[in-house]
Structures are given as structure tokens and as C-alpha cells.
């Protein structure tokens, strides 16, 4: 049986390397992303240091969910140059694990950062050229008073390595992690077979080959009388036979076909999202501090007006059930349902989140379910990826959308990819919250939903009313896919002005991807993303009162996926459409939507779809924002100039094609 299992292991790996459908990941992972989780082999990562923070998430999962076992991040010596590796080590050694987490949850994360120190990173030699640590193990001394139990071990001696790992594993089981291992090793092969190894001498390679661990160890076994040379030779011969066999199997197109995209053109499409619906990822009772109804925030919300209009007037901010309340209700509900659900960010506990969404959660939840993290956006998202991969639901939060750049790899290469690269085997139940700012200038006011929408594998929502916020967030928190939630800071305190029945007290979901007609009309459609909805409503009022035009206003609500049916239906009726959002116009996802509408409803169009976005500038100071973000007047001017001249309208902004081309020529 062991023999069969070894063949299975070799074949599953090789078939994966050869992109065969029988491979461990159906050939969608490949050499650099092969893994087999039933044996505890979690994803390899083609991004250097990619596992440096993801593995920490795995350790977090084990700790929070009281799962046995430890986590090892096998990363290279050169990854010590990568921010996410440092962020991962910082995150994993936060004092709070030892000092603030309570009861059985107290103690260090069970993780070994095992630096496979083969001395080279691509063409760069780490010690002596691209690094300054002298001995890599030195770095561990910087993290936490116990110095991460850092140690260099001779990775050319299997027994030394076994000894070290055994000792370190014990440390982790005693909750004294994390651990740093500097595993001294050397590769004879180049970076890849195409690498001529021009950066190192033949003598150096030979010197290491002379101490080849396999030969050395074999000889010492013979010398110690454990076995004979012929035993070793037999092992080698057996192995060659096994390798030949799996090569024959894995290279055969009949036995190991590649994914047949002719027969099933949707095979990859089908694994981009897992589209699951899961109440809870663990059967255990969720750890909470009090029954939900005793929570002060819950009690406060109970007194609020769940519909924001009374006798045609807006209810005061203090009395209205706000968008942040909708977010809170969805999140607190999930915390009481799913024991694996955790949330963290830079100001989540005590502060209650920078925009008070989490106010009340600190009282409700123990430390291990809601905590402040180091200001490590990469690790905040990276650990969430690891946490989700291992089977938990997680709500990471970056205060500002603008900080997404700091988590670029984690969002664009990790969170978005692993479901499909595992052929749907892994789930990624991450609901990642970011807020779109205003008032705080160029680095705190950007709507980057278009950037995220461009990357395949992430769902993107942008709720703009309390009803939508609760319903969409419920759907996101019930799902198994990564969902990026964009929230506008302008709207946290807005009441529900559209859903006349008010925001339901109970649980409900709004389908992700379904836009909503916020105002019915027949002459022109306005499709918005984000807070521009409210600007569009104002524009619609003016169109009605001043120009006798009835505008239909549709809130996209979701960006990925996006069901065009309602929009196309509307455009067929009106023949005209303006698309508006706060994102900079160039490359805005609205352009994509406009293009799709042009292609699918061309014959119904009375004018080209027109996009009104923010200027392609830095976001200026709050006092100048009206020159940057789309205003009501812009929407009217754009309609007048490009779609339907409005009788007596005096445009104040230049939406002519000429001006459009001029700006484009200058790149502004």
C-alpha cells in the first residue's frame, strides 16, 4: 500500500507539473503551485516570499480554531528581502498573542519560518552581496524577546535537520512560537534548467557536490552497519523504476489527458468561483462574550428608524438606521453563527473601526476573534488568505482603499488565484473591507474598485444604502469566494431612502451581481457605482423638473459579477445612458460597462454611452473636490453635449470629444 501511495504521490505531482487533468490540481496549478492538502501540503507559491504571510494565516487558523498541528513556511533565503515576509514575521510575533489573548488562546502562533538557505536568489548571492545579515539566523533576534528561537541548522545533514525540526515543533506545541530556522543548504541545479549558473564558480558547485548529503548519509549508514551498499543500490534502482513508471503515465496523453477545453470550454470558468453557501465552517459553538441581544450596539440600533424617510423628510442622522448599522448587523450575525469567523485590521478592537462599523463588537467578542493587527496591509490580507485556505472565514479590513497597493500581491496574486489554481478544491471565504475616502487628499480618497475588478477571481461589491449593505454583506459572508467590499466614507451615516419597507431586522441576502433600479424613468438611464448614486438622483430630479426628462437611475451595487439584464432592459427603453462613479475616468470599470452596453444594445442606442468619472488627477484637498469628483452639473453637461441637447441648458464643463481627446493626448 505504501508503494501505491508513493506512486500516487509522485504521479499526482508530476501530472500536475505536466498540466494533466489527473494532477493534484487538475493541471491548473503547475510546477510552482502544486499541493495536496490531504497530506497537509498547502500551496507552493511562485511569488518569492508569498508564503511568508499566508502561512501565518494558516497558523492563525490553527490557533483560533484550536486545531492540532503546526505550520511551516518553506521560503528561500532571498525572500528575506521581501516586505510580506517581514510583515508575516511581525504579525506572527505580536505581543497580544502572549499578553492579551485569553485562556487557551493565549500564546504564540505555531509557525516555523523555515528559510531554505541555498545562498542564492536568482542571480544574486544573498550573504555577501544582496543581504547584510551575515548569517540569516541573526534576523530572528529582532522579533520578540525570545528571538523567535532562531537558529542555523546544517541542512546538509538530514539528522541535524530532523533534530532541529523536532525541537522546534515542541516549542510550538508549548505555544512559544513563532520560530525562525536558517536551514543551510545548496542547490547544484541552476535557478531553472535554463540557468547557466554564470554567477557562481564550478569549483563552488563541485565543493558542495563533494559533500552531497545523499552520498554522505548513505556512506555513514553503511559505515555504521545499518545497511549494505547493495541495499542502497537497490533503493536507487527501485526509485528509478518508480520514476520511469510515473513519467510514462504522466507523459501519456491517453492515460493523463490535459484538461479538454474543446469538449468543455467552460472548465476553467467553472472553477473561477466556488459559489458556495455555508452557514458555518465549524460545528463548534462560536466564542462570544454575551448574548447578542445584550450588546449595547444591538440595543441602540433597535431604537433606530429602519426607513430613512418620514412624511417625505429625511430622518435625522441620530435617529436613522445607517449604512454602518447595516454592515454591523450582517457582521455580528455571522460572528454568532460561524465560530471560525474572525475580523482584524489596524483599528478594529476598542476603537470600533475608524468609521464605527465595529462599535459594539469589542464587547461582543473575545480577543482572538476581533483584534488589532500590526500596520501590515500585506500581512493583513496575506494571513487572511492563509486562514481561508485552511478552512476559516475571515474579514480583513484596510481602512482606506488607497492602502490596497500595500497589499497588492496578496489581493492580486493570492486571494484571487487559489480557488482556480486548486481547480476549485480550496475555498477562499474572505470578505475584505476597504473604505473609499474623501476629504483626505490624494492618498486617502481613491475608488480603486476598477483595479480589483480587472483581476479575475475576486467578487467586488459597493453597497450604497443600508438595505443593500446588509443584504450584500450577508450574501458575501454566506459565500465561499473572496469578496472585496468597497464602502464610501460619505455614506456611512446615510439612512435607507429607497427601500420603503425599511431594512429588515432579520437575515436576508441580496444576490451579488444584481444591480438595483433606484428610480424608475423612461427617457435616459443613469448607471452609478458608489456614492455617485446620490448625485445621479439629484441630476434626475433636475432633468425632470427643468427639462421634462424622466431618468432611470440604476445602482450597480456589484461590479463583479455583474448581471446586465436590468441595465440592457433599461437602455432598450430609454436609448440613452450615462455611467458615473467617483473612480478616475481613465480605465474605470464604467468604461468596460459602457463598452458592453454598446456591444449588446447597439441598435437601441440613440447616443453612445457616456462615462462621467473623476478627473485623471490627484484628488485635491476637500475644498477643491467639486472640481475632481463628478457633480450633478457634470452629469447634465455630459448629457447635453454628448447624448441629448437640453433646451436652454448652459453647460459649464467641457464634455466635447475635442476636449476628451486633448486630455487623453496629455494623459490627464
Amino acid at each position, binding site marked *: 500500500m505504501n508503494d501505491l501511495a508513493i506512486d500516487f504521490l509522485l504521479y499526482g505531482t508530476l501530472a500536475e507539473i505536466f498540466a494533466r487533468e489527473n494532477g493534484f490540481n487538475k493541471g491548473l496549478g503547475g510546477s510552482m503551485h502544486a499541493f495536496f492538502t490531504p497530506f497537509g501540503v498547502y500551496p507552493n507559491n511562485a511569488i518569492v516570499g508569498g508564503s511568508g504571510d499566508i502561512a501565518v494565516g494558516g497558523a492563525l487558523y490553527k490557533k483560533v480554531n484550536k486545531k492540532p498541528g503546526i505550520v511551516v513556511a518553506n521560503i528561500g533565503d532571498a525572500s528575506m528581502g521581501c516586505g510580506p515576509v517581514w510583515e508575516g514575521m511581525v504579525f506572527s510575533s505580536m505581543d497580544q498573542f502572549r499578553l492579551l489573548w485569553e485562556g487557551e488562546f493565549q500564546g504564540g502562533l505555531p509557525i516555523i519560518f523555515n528559510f531554505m538557505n541555498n545562498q542564492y536568489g536568482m542571480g544574486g548571492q544573498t550573504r555577501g552581496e544582496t543581504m547584510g545579515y551575515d548569517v540569516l539566523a541573526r534576523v530572528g533576534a529582532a522579533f520578540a524577546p525570545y528571538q523567535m528561537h532562531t537558529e542555523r541548522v546544517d541542512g546538509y545533514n538530514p539528522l541535524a535537520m530532523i533534530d532541529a525540526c523536532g525541537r522546534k515543533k515542541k516549542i510550538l506545541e508549548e505555544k512559544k512560537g513563532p520560530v525562525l530556522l536558517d536551514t543551510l543548504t545548496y542547490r547544484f541545479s541552476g535557478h531553472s534548467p535554463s540557468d547557466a549558473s554564470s554567477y557562481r564558480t564550478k569549483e563552488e558547485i563541485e565543493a558542495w557536490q563533494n559533500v552531497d548529503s545523499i552520498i554522505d548519509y548513505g556512506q555513514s549508514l553503511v559505515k555504521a552497519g545499518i545497511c549494505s551498499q547493495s541495499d542502497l543500490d537497490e533503493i536507487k534502482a527501485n526509485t528509478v523504476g518508480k520514476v520511469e513508471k510515473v513519467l510514462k503515465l504522466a507523459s501519456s496523453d491517453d492515460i493523463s489527458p490535459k484538461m479538454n477545453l474543446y469538449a468543455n470550454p467552460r472548465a476553467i470558468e467553472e472553477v473561477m468561483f466556488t459559489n458556495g453557501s455555508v452557514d458555518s465552517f465549524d460545528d463548534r459553538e462560536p466564542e462570544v462574550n454575551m448574548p447578542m441581544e445584550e450588546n449595547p450596539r444591538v440595543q441602540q440600533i433597535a431604537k433606530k428608524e429602519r426607513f430613512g424617510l418620514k412624511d417625505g423628510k429625511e430622518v435625522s442622522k441620530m435617529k436613522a438606521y445607517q449604512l454602518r448599522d447595516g454592515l454591523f448587523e450582517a457582521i455580528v450575525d455571522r460572528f454568532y453563527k460561524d465560530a471560525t469567523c474572525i475580523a482584524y485590521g489596524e483599528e478594529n478592537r476598542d476603537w470600533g473601526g475608524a468609521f464605527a462599523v465595529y462599535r459594539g463588537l469589542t464587547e461582543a467578542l473575545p480577543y482572538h476573534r476581533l483584534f488589532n493587527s500590526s500596520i501590515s496591509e500585506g500581512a493583513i490580507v496575506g494571513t487572511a488568505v492563509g486562514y481561508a485556505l485552511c478552512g476559516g472565514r475571515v474579514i480583513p479590513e484596510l481602512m482606506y482603499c488607497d492602502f490596497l497597493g500595500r497589499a497588492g500581491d496578496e489581493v492580486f496574486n493570492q486571494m484571487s488565484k487559489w480557488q482556480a489554481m486548486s481547480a476549485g478544491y480550496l475555498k477562499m471565504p474572505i470578505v475584505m473591507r476597504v473604505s473609499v475616502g474623501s476629504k483626505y487628499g490624494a492618498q486617502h480618497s481613491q475608488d480603486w474598485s476598477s483595479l480589483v475588478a480587472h483581476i479575475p477571481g475576486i467578487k467586488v461589491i459597493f453597497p450604497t444604502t443600508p438595505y443593500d449593505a446588509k443584504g450584500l454583506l450577508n450574501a458575501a459572508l454566506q459565500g465561499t469566494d473572496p469578496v472585496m467590499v468597497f464602502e464610501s466614507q460619505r455614506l456611512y451615516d446615510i439612512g435607507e431612502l429607497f427601500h420603503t419597507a425599511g431594512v429588515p431586522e432579520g437575515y436576508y441576502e441580496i444576490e451579488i451581481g444584481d444591480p438595483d433600479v433606484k428610480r424608475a424613468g423612461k427617457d435616459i438611464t443613469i448607471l452609478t457605482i458608489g456614492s455617485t448614486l446620490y448625485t445621479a438622483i439629484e441630476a434626475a430630479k433636475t432633468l425632470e423638473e427643468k427639462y421634462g426628462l424622466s431618468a432611470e437611475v440604476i445602482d450597480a451595487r456589484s461590479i463583479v459579477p455583474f448581471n446586465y439584464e436590468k441595465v440592457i432592459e433599461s437602455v432598450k427603453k430609454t436609448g440613452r445612458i450615462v455611467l458615473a462613479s467617483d473612480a478616475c475616468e481613465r480605465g474605470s470599470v464604467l468604461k468596460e460597462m459602457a463598452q458592453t452596453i454598446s456591444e449588446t444594445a447597439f441598435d437601441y442606442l440613440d447616443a453612445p454611452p457616456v462615462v462621467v468619472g473623476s478627473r485623471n488627477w490627484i484628488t485635491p484637498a476637500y475644498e477643491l473636490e467639486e472640481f475632481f469628483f463628478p457633480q450633478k452639473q457634470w452629469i447634465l453637461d455630459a448629457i447635453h*453635449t454628448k447624448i441629448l*441637447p*437640453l433646451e436652454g*441648458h448652459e453647460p459649464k464643463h*467641457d464634455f466635447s470629444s475635442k*476636449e476628451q481627446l486633448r486630455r487623453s493626448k496629455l494623459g490627464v
Partner: protein
Amino acid sequence: MAEAVIMPRQGQSVESCIFSEWFFKVGDKVSKGDMLFTYETDKAAFEQEALVDGVLLATFAKEGDEIPVLETIAVIGAEGESIDEFAPGGKATVQTASDPHDEVKEDKAPEIQQPIAEVSAGKDSAISPRAKNLAAKEHVSIEHLKGTGPEGRIIERDVEAAAKNRTKATPLAKSIAAHDHKELPATGTGFGGKIRAADVKQMPSVTLANDFTDKKISNIRKIIAQNMYESLANTAQLTLHTSADARKMLSIRNAMKSKMADGYAYNITINDMVSFATIRALIVNPEINIHFMGDSIRSFSNVHLGFAVDTPRGLMVPTVKNANHLTIEGLSATMKELAGACQKGSVNPESLQGATFTMTNLGGFGIEMFTPVLNPPQAGILGVNTITQQAAQLEGGAFGFIPKIGLSLTFDHRALDGAPAARFLQSVAHHIENLSI
């Protein structure tokens, strides 16, 4: 490689033609077979198709220019090709495509567009897909629509307005118009061309209006005018009227109709039959089948029958040569072919010459009697009138009504006297009444 467009030669005798009109502008794309321009000879107007695909690069003729045949009048080629080698030695006006960059400059829109600039939508103006579909559905011609969309684009509302408002007017405008006994104007200044009260009020007073427009006449009109005037001024023409029993012709016509239903290929009309009878009469009365040359008379041994054709360009008179040799089917087919060519403007000028006698038929308009004008040097022209029911003594001695076709013969008294002319007319009537085919 650019290609020259030349003024075609229309018959051996034609040395030059008058250029009329371009159907394309310089810079337009033309396709082989597109109607490119019109021109006229002293006898007829013609249309010329483009013979190659390409862009109209330059034109060297404008309306009214007299152009020697075979001379280059335009160049068709690829955009940007040189036209230097084609330009006629600086004589003609060379109009070349203006530089597109200049056009942009000329087109310079104000920084911010003016509200609702009504731009006349010519052939080339843009139209939204939605407007186009609506126009097709509502059978609205977009040719003369004014686009009120951005940059003059025809948009849905323009087509809707045209569909609804073929004379759409405000209720007030309608009531003012009714009160003042005025017709509504064609378009108004309201939204989408709606007629507003102000439009009606601004209409000129019925009594004081200058109700005429001046339009230059075409060259063919000039030629007709000259010919007609000269005919009346220089000959001694008078007209005789009679009528002939049409019963035989009508029964033949009915027989023909049933024959045609069985697949007979010729549609022999009353006019064909009258012409056939006239040719027979001319054979037996050769003294009217002549040209009066002032001091001599030219007699012809065959009948070359001219017949008047009404065309969009004006009156044309093609000739059936040696008409006396044709059967009625041959005559009918030849006349239809020539008439068709005149209608299309493609008639060979040779066919417009050499008639010895002319027929002209206004019977289709219900005309009972008229005085046709001679085509000198011919000495006779027979006007064919409508068929009317006239009282007559029937075979049994009883009186009744029989269908009779009116015949009006104008002849030149300089060439022959009244009696031979009357004899000829009587002969025509006889051949009509005893027609056998």
C-alpha cells in the same frame, strides 16, 4: 493608380457637351456604377456612371461649362494620390479635396457647445442606431431630417418629430391658421420642427406676398424653347382635326390583352396601332413624308417616324428609322426601347435625328383636340387625342354611340396644300378603322 473621368462622346456629330451636375463632392467615396454626373447635348440630357471605385479626387467642370468630348473632367483614385497629371492646363477650375486638417480648423466648435444647434443633416450626417431603426419602422425619410443631437446627429427625437409632425403644430398655431384662412407652413421653429403660433403669425399676408421663385432653366429647356419658337416663327403651319372609329383598335387591344395573358410578349398599345396606321398612310401619301428645305423639297422613300416623349428633363423626340419595314410588334418594341432610353437619359443622340414625320400623343391626358407644333424641316406632325364616345349612325340605320379617336394634323402650308393634307389625314383614319395586323 488614379483614373481620369472623361466627358463621353455621344454620337459622331457631337463635339462638346454641356456639363450639368455632380452627384458627389470632391473627397467622397464613389463605387463603380454610382451615378456620377449629368450632362447634356443640344438634343438630350445624359447621366454617366462611375466606371471605377475610389475617391473623387478632383473635378474640373461645373454646371454650364461646355466641355469638349473625351476631355478629362474629374479624377477618381486613392486618397492622397496626385492629380497633377490630369489637371487640364489651368483652364478649368481645379477643385481638390481640402486638407482634412483645414477642415478641422474650419469646423472649430466653440469651447463649450451651444445649446441645440440645429444642423442641417445632409446625406452624410450621422444618425444614431436607434433613430435609424425608428426611421425604417415609421417610413420616415432621413434625407432631409435635421439632426438635433450632438454635432448634428439625427437622434430618436428627430425621427419621432418627423413621424408625428409631418405638419405638427401647436393647438394655438392651428387655431390662428384656421381663423386667418392660412395654410400651415411646412416646418416651424418649435421643438423638433413643431409649428408654433409665432410661425403662423410670421407668415406673409396672403394678398401682399411675393409668391414666386426664380429658377434658371436647364439647357434642354433652352433648346426646346428655341426650337419651338423658331418653328412657329419660320413656317406656315395650320392644323386639321378629325376623328376615326376606334372600335377595331379597341377590339384588337382586348384581343392582345388576352393574348398577353397567354404569354404573348408584346404589349401593343393604342398608340402603337395609331402609329402603325399612320406609317401605312404615309406610304400611300408620300407628299407629306418630306423635309421642306426652303427652296427644295426632300422626299424620302422610307418613313422615319419621330415621336414625342415626355421625360423628367423635358420633351425629347427619338426616331424610329425605316419604320415602314417594321411589323407592329417590331414598331411597338422599338418605340418602347427608345422611349425608355430617353427617360433614363441614355438615348443615343443619333436616334434623336432624321425623322421625316412626327407623332405626338396627348390622349392619355384626356386631350380631345390640340395644335401640335411642327419639327422643321418636317412638313407634318400628327397629334393623337383621347378616345371619346360620339353619336353616329350605326350599320342598321339606327343612331348610337361609338368610340372615336381624335386626330390633329399640323402641316406646313409652304410644303403642301390643304387638300393633300386632308387626304392624308383621311387616309390615316381609314387605316385606323381598317387596321389589320
